[in-house]
């Protein structure tokens, strides 16, 4: 009896694993120079953020060159855990993808190791810099510039002269958001207070909701979040406050988060500071195809080349005008935004 039961449990486990694996598959065969794949950093390719943007970029690149999903075309490997990084990269190398993207700074060690062992494959790392590897292109974004514009938008919109910032974890990347946002707010009106809080996680919506509730109760009426899944709670808090008759806003991050702010009776998304990882992925794939992959170099995307930007969701015409004005000044180099 007991044995039978153990077998049943084992089958259930196996089933669970199979179901999880449903999203991605790859098999090995010969590759071409025109294939590219990416490895996600923990979220899926539909995380409404970073990974999704990267995958959409890769898909559109593949489609514009008549490639198919799979070997010899484009593909992805999803990491559910940090320990999946190396196996995923190896899987893609075996399937002979010419260019492999690591989406997110967490993958920098894995990419660096793999690049050393596979000098003929092109690697790219997003949001980090891998040094001393001639086949690795490092991609960084000047998110402080888009965050600066978010700060301008917040400062132009606030009625209480208090705005908030909710970060995920305190890392170099998230700090650039904070720094840019503060500078943007101060550029418009140095008297506006900026309240900075970190949730300590990218996946705790309940902590995000508590932080934002506290901020709104403290009469801060615009919150910029750079906190991934924790940000969902910020939106919930904003909707609750709005339903109670408070005029409050959230500025979204990475992707256009207008849909996240919709509720029965309105929308709380003021704007979204987007980071077009997809543009970068598409760009680098094209360069790799032409044999001009920027291996060993750091490629930076900013406002000027449309790698980052601010999307207007519900801003007043006047505020949007001011934002555009600042955008021109940053693009022309008149205003320099510091990442720290």
């Amino acid at each position, binding site marked *: 009896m007991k044995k039978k039961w153990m077998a049943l*449990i084992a089958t259930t486990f196996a089933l669970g694993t199979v*179901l999880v694996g449903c999203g991605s598959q790859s098999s090995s065969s010969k590759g071409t120079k025109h294939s590219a794949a990416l490895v996600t950093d923990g979220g899926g390719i539909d*995380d409404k953020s970073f990974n999704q943007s990267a995958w959409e970029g890769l898909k559109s690149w593949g489609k514009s060159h008549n490639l198919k999903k799979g070997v010899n075309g484009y593909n992805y490997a999803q990491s559910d855990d940090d320990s999946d990084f190396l196996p995923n990269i190896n899987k893609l190398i075996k399937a002979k993808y010419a260019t492999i993207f690591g989406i997110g700074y967490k993958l920098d060690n894995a990419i660096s190791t793999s690049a050393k062992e596979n000098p003929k494959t092109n690697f790219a790392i997003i949001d980090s810099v891998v040094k001393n590897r001639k086949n690795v292109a490092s991609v960084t974004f000047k998110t402080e510039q888009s965050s600066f514009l978010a700060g301008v938008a917040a400062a132009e919109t606030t009625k209480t002269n208090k705005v908030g910032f909710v970060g995920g974890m305190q890392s170099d990347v998230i700090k650039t958001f904070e720094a840019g946002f503060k500078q943007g707010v101060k550029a418009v009106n140095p008297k506006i207070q900026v309240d900075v809080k970190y949730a300590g996680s990218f996946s705790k*919506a*309940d902590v995000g*909701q508590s932080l934002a509730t*506290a901020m709104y109760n403290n009469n801060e009426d615009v919150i910029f979040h750079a906190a991934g899944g924790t940000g969902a*709670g910020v939106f919930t808090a904003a909707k*609750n406050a709005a339903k*109670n008759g408070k005029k409050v806003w959230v500025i979204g991050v990475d992707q256009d988060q207008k849909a996240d702010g919709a509720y029965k009776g309105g929308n709380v998304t003021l704007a979204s500071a987007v980071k077009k990882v997809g543009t970068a992925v598409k760009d680098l794939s094209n360069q790799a195809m032409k044999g001009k992959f920027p291996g060993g170099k750091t490629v930076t995307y900013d406002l000027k080349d449309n790698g980052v930007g601010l999307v207007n969701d519900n801003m007043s015409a006047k505020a949007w005008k001011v934002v555009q004005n600042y955008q021109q000044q940053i693009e022309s180099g008149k205003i320099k935004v510091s990442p720290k």
Partner: protein
Amino acid sequence: MSFSTVLMTVFSTTLIYAAPLIFTALGGAFSEHSGIVNVGLEGMMIVGAFSSTVFNLFCAKIFGAATPWISLLIGAVFGLLFSLLHAVATINFRADHIISGTVLNMLAPALCVFLTRIFYNGKGQTPIIDQSMGTFTFPGLSKIPLLGKMLFTHTSLVAYLAIIVGIIGWYFLYRTNIGLRLRSVGENPVAADTLGINVAEYRYLGVLISGFLGGIGGAVMAQSITLNFSVSTISGQGFMSLAAMIFGKWNPLGATAAAIFFGLAQSLPIIGGYVPFLAHVNSVWFQIAPYAITIVVLVIFLGKAVAPAADGQNYIKSK
């Protein structure tokens, strides 16, 4: 922030965090009092969160503002159905309770994400629900000076419901015939059986109630906090509930209080920064605080927590 606003914020954020934990911890208490260890609470929450979200998205047009509340019931029903797996495995097939619970925890996220992909064009998370549980201001009660603003303004209605369920749960387990029998089965199944109590039946009851409440817990999370379902909707709340149950010494009232305490420990550091005389303290201290407070309280105020005597033991009649 004025003093009364600080208090109001502390209490409302405490309740936001505590509501899903209370329901789920109560579920755990029912299961364990019947003698079935339930580490599968996390899985039951996931199923509850998923099914309630899907129901909400499909039926929001029909039921309007009542949708999130009906969704709680749907989450509960699916949580109950899912817990049947645990009941059958442990009661009929005498499987190890921990293993069976772990199976639920591994199965639930995979299954729910898989179904999400089928229902929503291959996407790994559902769209956002329009009809969500907002905050609630108690008419009348909110007019009480200070207390009214503190406890009854812009707060979480579902958390108050959870506390009432906690009180009912205590009454049920300690004051009714069925409840006492359910506990006897978890303390000494042989004696209970000798007296004509159907052990398997009562254990089923315990596990199914835990699935029902666990499902509600997950649904509360989805309907009032994340407002959609993704793989990270439930991230460890099931285990926090288990901890709350043990912290509360397997007593429904204790578990409720423990869940609220966890919420308070989570909320105080967030609000700490807005209290004028604490505003200049380094925020690292606030982030450490929840863990430090929990350890201190555990060490100082709690004696030995005693589980039901036959908790985790399979009952084999012929022995």
